[in-house]
């Protein structure tokens, strides 16, 4: 077996002479980061090895301890990045390049993790629906009864949104709001963020909550003609909190505490924050780039001006567990 042979050769080779690679453990889907990896490898000649670990990235790095080959830990959702820091598997990186490229509220104050792109939790509405603006609070309004689609309340995208709601209004109000939202659902809270667009086209619901970049993926035609139809069936409204802006979440990365190739790892992070990579984030993944001055994809730009909610990511993370418990409590997924 290839990997076994690899393992054997590592065993025989002396530690110092092995060529420096960057080993990435990622919870981001490979399709999303592959273009970035390819262009980094081309620019620097450093080989990149990846393993996509949907869940259990933290557990794996923790149990691997100082033997772990991981250099870079990539994750979606600030909560996952904070978890990695809390579990002690990251290390601070003092890099002027990163500090300059990434705004302070999108990276860890202790320099452990760095946001590399962000996405907004937006509302998809049926194209012909007479609706120009909406608040998150409005989603629980009984006038939407039987008209809202959303994925599982326990999905990190949703728990982060609900946690932000707690940050704005407190747990009690959030529970009431969640119960109202639950009562408005047109179908079970399940599936993915694209399914809600398809469901709007299918007449199951009028409005839905989903991430911003899916619209780009659908409308661009990368997923085939059908998805173009799904994407065209909806319009995107950037919802806000009554007393704030639109909830966003980041994708980001950290350098592993026991990174065997720390220099290359930092180089890779710095590359991801560069204009070239940020453009890929914007163009290939339809995300909001963190670096100022990098242009948005036109599809995303068409949503209008994004006002990022001011709740610090760290605070949202703190309310995540409470949000998850509220989801259980109101039987959101039932």
């Amino acid at each position, binding site marked *: 077996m290839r990997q076994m042979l690899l393992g054997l050769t590592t065993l025989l080779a002396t530690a110092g002479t092995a060529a420096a690679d960057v080993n990435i453990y990622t919870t981001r889907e490979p399709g999303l980061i592959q273009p970035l990896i390819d262009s980094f490898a081309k620019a620097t000649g450093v080989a990149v090895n990846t393993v996509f670990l949907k869940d259990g990235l933290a557990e794996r790095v923790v149990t691997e301890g100082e033997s772990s080959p991981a250099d870079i830990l990539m994750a979606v959702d600030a909560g996952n990045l904070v978890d990695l820091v809390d579990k002690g598997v990251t290390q601070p990186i003092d890099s002027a390049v990163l500090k300059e490229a990434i705004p302070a509220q999108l990276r860890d104050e202790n320099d452990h993790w760095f946001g590399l792109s962000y996405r907004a939790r937006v509302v998809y509405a049926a194209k012909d629906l007479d609706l120009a603006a909406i608040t998150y609070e409005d989603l629980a309004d009984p006038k939407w009864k039987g008209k809202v689609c959303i994925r599982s309340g326990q999905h990190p995208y949703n728990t982060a949104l609900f946690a932000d709601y707690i940050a704005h209004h407190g747990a009690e109000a959030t529970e009431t709001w969640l119960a109202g939202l639950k009562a408005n659902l047109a179908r079970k809270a399940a599936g993915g963020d694209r399914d809600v667009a398809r469901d709007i086209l299918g007449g*199951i619901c009028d409005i839905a909550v989903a991430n911003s970049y899916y619209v780009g993926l659908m409308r661009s035609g990368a997923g085939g003609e059908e998805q173009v139809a799904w994407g065209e069936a909806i319009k995107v409204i950037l919802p806000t909190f009554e007393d704030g802006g639109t909830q966003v979440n980041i994708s980001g990365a950290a350098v592993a505490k026991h990174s065997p190739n720390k220099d290359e790892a930092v180089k890779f992070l710095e590359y991801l924050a560069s204009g070239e990579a940020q453009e890929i984030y914007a163009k290939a993944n339809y995300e909001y780039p963190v670096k100022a001055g990098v242009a948005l994809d036109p599809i995303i730009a068409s949503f209008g001006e994004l006002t990022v909610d001011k709740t610090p990511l760290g605070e949202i993370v703190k309310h995540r567990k409470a949000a998850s418990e509220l989801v259980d409590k109101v039987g959101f997924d039932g």
Partner: protein
Amino acid sequence: MALVAGTAPSAQTAPRGRRPIWCLAAGIVAGLVVLPVLALGSEAIGGSLGLWSHLAGTILPAALADTLLLLLGVGLIAGFLGVTLAWLVTAHDFPGRGILEWALLLPLAVPTYIVAYAYLDILHPIGAFQGAVRWILGYSSPREFRLPDIRSLAGCVLLLSLVLYPYVYLTTRAMFLSQSANLLDAARTLGTPRRRLFRRVALPLARPAIAVGVSLTLMEALNDIGASEFLGVRTLTVSIYTTWVTKNDLAGATQIALLLLAIVVALVSFERWARRRQGYVSGSRGRTMQPERHDGLKGIGLCALGVLPVVFGFVVPAVYLAAEAWKRWRFAGLSDRLVGEAVDTLLYAGGATLLTLVLGVVAAFALRLSPGWTGPLIYRLATTGYAMPGTVVAIGVLLVVAPFDRLVDGAARDWFGVSTGLLLIGSGTALIYAYVVRFLAITAGSADAGLARVPKSLDDAARTLGRSAGGTLCAVHLPLTRASLAAGALLVFVDCIKELPATLLLRPLNMETFATHLYGEAARGTYEEASLAALAIVLIGILPVIVLSRVGRNPSS
């Protein structure tokens, strides 16, 4: 011959405590399987119990109810389908029966997560089916008319039953085939009309086989996470997942996992209790029953009836996947990633299958050699992995393997100044270990079933002719149980290819299988990009179907 009464104790006279090597080997196998469970257990103890008051007040009642309803529904529908179809092709002969006999196994090839995705797309208001219905009824938009959503407990039950019934069909048909025609003839001479034979004789006789098939089905349903998550059914397995991932509470997740394990242990005990009496039915030999021939309209009707489950459980999703794959091919061509994925998929599944087969034979053989309490205990422990969701097994294996890897690496650094890296995880051994833990029950079970058909006197004969226990295994048992071992091995092979949670968590760098590729795409909603991988999984899944159909046809092998 075997029916001639032997002397009383011969059934249980295998020697006691005299096969230390085999028992030891099987004990090590069992230990390897139990180790991850123990690791999870200590993790669970380390956690607080605070979660439970929350769970008990919120999702646990619903999750338990959903889980039990799911099991009940799948058990009933898959059981009904499996038994009826088995009888249909055993007791009746009609045009197309020969093909139908093995075609009925085809849904086994379709993983639950694929069938769920395919049907969601087909039955969606904007999908082909509802489009056609609207066209017939003259509606122009789904906003005017649409059918109920498949994303429900009922939909999940239906879809799971459609792809899981072959487990019941397989075991029950083998039992029907091995039932002596004399028994059925005897019932007829005693005044049972042909149409009542099924309920009065064949069905009661096949009960143990039905129980085995149904419990396999239920285990699969319980372990399913793809379809349930997709269709919005909150089973316990899904709860384990969200507790771990969303609430970041691994200890709590393992606590729920242990609860699930308790349910499964109950299920397994039921299956064993049912199987306890199997010996007496399968002992009979002689002519098998002669099916009743139907031609003309009735024959065609029966055939059509039998074809329905194949159409819904296999043809529809497979054609759908093929069409999607074709579209994708036209759109993006054949990705060269697929070749690498094929190599990884086949290598890992192949290696794991081989190991699982060898260890399964060891466990089953030790059981045969020591029928006291040690053999069965070891056997049971060795086969607990099948009862655990893949996610749980994966975490358990990680908890066992990673400290070992750290230890080796640390020691190597201290003594030789060389880093070994992660020996087991980095080489993929950890993943293969997880596959073995998860699927050992399949090979051990088929080895056990195969061995049960070999008379004990053959063991004794070989021993007195100068062969050791191991020599006997190689010269007598392995050749005689070849067919059922092959069937078990192929099931494991396909299960490894379909396996997702453990593969995701434990794979080494750069390893991508068809299933992980599919999942990676599904996770960001781009299923279409993985339709070729999905089609490959289904096509590979057809392999064991072909072999199983041959094994089933010849009950003596």
